[in-house]
């Protein structure tokens, strides 16, 4: 039964049909599937399937990325409120766009995706100062800072990822906090993440979920 629910839910998400996706989830709930199973057996596997499909060259468009993350995030939030006990959170991520960058879409996709994967997100918004990224990571004991940039100059800026790295070095935090970057400039130049001294990069908002989750799990070891 869960396999059918996952298939139907995924189809609705890929069709960018939020109403159908929510209806499938609510029907599953009514037919006795627990909120825990909906999150861990439907939403997370569906998200992981989408990540896998994208990594295998499935040609998903931006609307599908957006809808997948928003639907997953919404369903997760609704279901978690119904859990018998609070779920274990994998970790916390500090998220924002780099200094001078006002673009919000990529960050929002990443945020929705991470929340559905049981990762707490502290969203600092847009045009975030490098010091703020580090201060908030320390305050929330977050192992990952995720910096989204839509423009080449904001990705390469001395006040962007490069400065965050410099501050981590100065404060001797590099072993505790990793930097993940993403956004259009990194797709144009897949080596750019090394130039800006990030630890990892993600090609799109959905893939970012996996990259960040893997990084957190690795650091937990």
């Amino acid at each position, binding site marked *: 039964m869960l396999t059918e629910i996952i298939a139907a839910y995924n189809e609705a998400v890929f*069709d*960018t049909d*939020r109403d159908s996706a929510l209806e499938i989830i609510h029907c599953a709930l009514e037919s006795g599937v627990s909120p825990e199973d909906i999150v861990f057996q439907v939403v997370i596997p569906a998200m992981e399937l989408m990540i896998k499909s994208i990594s295998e060259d499935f040609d998903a*468009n*931006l*609307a*599908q990325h*957006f*809808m997948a993350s*928003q639907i997953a995030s919404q369903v997760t939030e609704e279901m978690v409120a119904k859990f018998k006990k609070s779920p274990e959170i994998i970790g916390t991520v500090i998220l924002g766009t780099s200094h*001078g*960058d*006002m*673009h*919000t*879409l990529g*960050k*929002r996709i990443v945020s929705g995706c991470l929340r559905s994967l049981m990762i707490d997100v502290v969203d600092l918004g847009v*045009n975030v100062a490098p010091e703020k990224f580090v201060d908030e990571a320390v305050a929330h004991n977050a192992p990952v800072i995720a910096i989204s940039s839509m*423009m*080449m*100059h*904001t990705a*390469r*800026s001395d006040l962007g990822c490069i400065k965050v790295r410099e501050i981590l070095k100065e404060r001797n935090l590099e072993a505790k906090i990793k930097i993940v970057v993403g956004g*259009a*400039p990194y797709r*144009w*130049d897949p080596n750019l993440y090394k130039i800006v001294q990030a630890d990892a990069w993600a090609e799109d908002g959905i893939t970012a979920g996996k990259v960040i989750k893997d990084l957190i799990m690795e650091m937990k070891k």
Partner: protein
Amino acid sequence: MITGMERLVAAMNGEKSDRIPVFCNLLDQGAKELGISTLKEYYSNGEYVAEAQLKMREKYGYDNVWSLFYVGKEAELLGCQKIIYATDGPPNVEHFVIQSDADIEKLQVPEDITSHPAWAEELKCLQILKREAKGKYPICAYLTASMTLPAILMGMDKWFELLFFGSHDLRDLLLSKCSEFFHKEVTAYRNAGADIILYANPFGSTDFVPKKQFQNLSMPWMKKDLEPVGIDDVVYYCGSSRMNNVIEPVMEQLNLKSFYLSPNDDVAAGKKIVANRGLTCGVINDIRLIGQKPKCAAKCNALLRLAWQGGNLRLAHW
């Protein structure tokens, strides 16, 4: 000597001239060219922009000039109060005109955009370009489609939210205001001397929206944008989003004939789809080629060879 306009016209007619037309998108670089230290100062005066455009075209010998200042100019015409100027990149919209549903209701398309203060420097620039280019080099204007304009008025994520989750009435109200703005804008640019209208619409690509939404939403709004104003000078452009998938329906349903591909598109495939029915503009992703002159030259040469086979192609850098 043959001019850029003659090269373009030859390419549009499927004829060969001395070389394929080359369009260069040098914008912010104009400030450096004139020795102006900040983009804010550079873009404050249409004379600077026009002078730099003419100077750069002369210096590098390419075939076009741009009347475009920065994309946020359109938002300024619709009430944007603040542009963020970087020292090392293009200006960006900092103040979103639409922050709530009520702002969509309140959004006013100026009755006459040419009397708007934000238009004054554009006009000054266009008048100089028109006078100095003397029809030898096409003057390009960049206009955002109704489906895409909301992204710079309210932010891309809020636009996606309204588009996919919001009220259809509100969505359509915003789209109709953006389309009305497009009509006024295209008329103003043409009257002021623009020769080529780059119709910018990433939502006209299936990299942005699924095919079904492209057909059911993007296409009808593109028709509403373009049918009342004519399409002879209009070039289809989806930013960095690919368009090979949609060239056929765009040709069939909008009658557009010029396509400015994405650097991510397969140029040979795009040219094959357009065939002899129109003009394809092959685009180089120069970001990946920064600091790699030999690779850049090889990439250009490959594209030029492709262009020369059968004509109907022009070259641009992205």
